[in-house]
C-alpha cells in the first residue's frame, strides 16, 4: 500500500493522465461515429497484424518439431528408396509370401533396409581409432553392424548399442572397411582409412586397366551388406598403379567430412546377419 502511495506521489501526474486518456478514448470511440469507425478499422488491422505475428512466431517455435518430423519422413523415404533399388534387380523370387506391393504398384521382392535418423552426440577424429556416439540405441531399433550414413556420404559402422545410444566406428577407424566401386565401372574394392591423412580414404583392389580419373565418384558397391548400394562415399583425388601391382592405389576424398558430421541415418540390412551366418557356415565346412 505504501509503495502504491509512493508511486502515485512520484508519478501521480502521469498516472492521472493515463487514466484520463483511457476514459476519454473510451468515450470517444463509444460516443463519436468517426472515431468509432476509425478505431474499428484500426483494431481490425492491428489484430490481424498481431495474429500474423503470433502465427509466425509459433511457426518458428515449431521448427524443431517440424525438423524431427521431416527427418523421420526422410528416413522412411530412404528406406523405400533402398528397398526399391533392391526390387529393381532382375530376379524372380518364387516365394510369394515374401512379396508385398508398394505405393508404386510394384512388387517389393526383398525389403532389405530399415533407415533410422539419428544425431551424432560424440565424435573423435584426431586419433588412430575414431568413434562416433549416436543418440539412438537398441530401443530405437538399432543393431550392431548397421551402417551410418549422412545425406552426403558414409560415416561409419555401428559396433555396440545400449538401450538409447550406439557406438559406431568412424570411417577414420582402421577396421572400417566398405565395399565400394568407382561409379561407371563394374569392379569393386575395399574403401578404408590408412591411418595417415584423415582427409583421405584409400580404395584398393581396383584393377589397373580401368581409366580412373580425378573427380570420379566412389560409391557403395552392390556387395555391401552394411550400406545401401549406390550411396556416394567419396571423390577420387589421385589414382596410380604401384610398381609391380595389378591394382590401382586410389586416394579418395570423403564427401562427408568425418569431423563435421551431425545428422545421420543408421541403415540396417535385415538380411546381413543371415548372410553373415551363411558365409561363416560355408567357411567352417571348408
Amino acid at each position, binding site marked *: 500500500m505504501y509503495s502504491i502511495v509512493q508511486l502515485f506521489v512520484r508519478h501521480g*501526474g502521469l498516472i492521472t*493522465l493515463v487514466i484520463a486518456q483511457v476514459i476519454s478514448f473510451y468515450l470517444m470511440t463509444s460516443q463519436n461515429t468517426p472515431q468509432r469507425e476509425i478505431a474499428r478499422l484500426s483494431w481490425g488491422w492491428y489484430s490481424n497484424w498481431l495474429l500474423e505475428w503470433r502465427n509466425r512466431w509459433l511457426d518458428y517455435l515449431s521448427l524443431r518439431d517440424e525438423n524431427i518430423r521431416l527427418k523421420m519422413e526422410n528416413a522412411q523415404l530412404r528406406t523405400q528408396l533402398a528397398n526399391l533399388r533392391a526390387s529393381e534387380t532382375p530376379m524372380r523370387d518364387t516365394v510369394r509370401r515374401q512379396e508385398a506391393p508398394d505405393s508404386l504398384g510394384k512388387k517389393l521382392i526383398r525389403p532389405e533396409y530399415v533407415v533410422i535418423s539419428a544425431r551424432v552426440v560424440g565424435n573423435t577424429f584426431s586419433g588412430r581409432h575414431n568413434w562416433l556416439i549416436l543418440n539412438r540405441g537398441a530401443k530405437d531399433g538399432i543393431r550392431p553392424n548397421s551402417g551410418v550414413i549422412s545425406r552426403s556420404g558414409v560415416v561409419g559402422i555401428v559396433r555396440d548399442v545400449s538401450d538409447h545410444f550406439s557406438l559406431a566406428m568412424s570411417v577414420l577407424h582402421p577396421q572400417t572397411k566398405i565395399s565400394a566401386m568407382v561409379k561407371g565401372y563394374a569392379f569393386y574394392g575395399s574403401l578404408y582409412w590408412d591411418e595417415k591423412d584423415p582427409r583421405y580414404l584409400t580404395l584398393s583392389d581396383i584393377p589397373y586397366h580401368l581409366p580412373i580419373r580425378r573427380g570420379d565418384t566412389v560409391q557403395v558397391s552392390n556387395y555391401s551388406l552394411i550400406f545401401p548400394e549406390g550411396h556416394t562415399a567419396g571423390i577420387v583425388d589421385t589414382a596410380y598403379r604401384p610398381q609391380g601391382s595389378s591394382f590401382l592405389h586410389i586416394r579418395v576424398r570423403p564427401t562427408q567430412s568425418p569431423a563435421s558430421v551431425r545428422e545421420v541415418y543408421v541403415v540396417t540390412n535385415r538380411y546381413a546377419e543371415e548372410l553373415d551366418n551363411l558365409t561363416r557356415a560355408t567357411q567352417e565346412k571348408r
Partner: protein
Amino acid sequence: MKGNWFFPNLWRFLSLLAVQGLILSGISYNTDGYISLLLYPLFILLLPILMPIPIVVLAGFLIGVFVDSFTGTLGLHASTGAFSGYVRALILDRFAPQGGYTGKEPIASPAYFGWRWFLSVSGVFFAVHLLWYFSVAYFTPVYFFNKILPQAALSWLSTMPVVMVLMRLFYPKN
C-alpha cells in the same frame, strides 16, 4: 498556493467554458474545422503554477468534458484538456526562471513574467494543445501532413492573437 486562488480560477472556468461552448464552437463548424478557436486551454494554463500535476490534469479533463458536452464530441476535448494539463508542467519547467518558481508568482501571467515569456510559453502550450486536439479528432496518423498539421497551424494563428488580447484586457494576477 495562497488562499485566494479558487474563485478567480472558477470564474475563468465558467467564462471560458461559456465563450467556448456557446460562441467559438460555431466558428469551427462554419470554417469546416479549418479554424478552431480554442480559448478554454487558457484556464489550464492559468491554473496556479505550484498546483500538483494530477490536479491540473484532472482540471483539464473536467473542462474538456464540459466543452465536449457543448460540442457533442464526448471525450475529444477531455483527452486534449488532460494532455495539456500534463504538458503544461513540462513547458513551465522548461521556461522556469533562474531559481525556479518560488510561489511569489502564483500564475503564468505576463503580469509576473513579462509578455515575451508569456508569448513563448503560451505559444508552445497552444501549439501542443491544438496538435493533440486535431490528432485525436482525426484519430489516425494518415492525415497528419495534409489535415492535422495545417489545421493545427491555422487554428494556432487565429487563437494566439485572441489569447493575447484577452490577456491584455484582463491582465490576470491570480
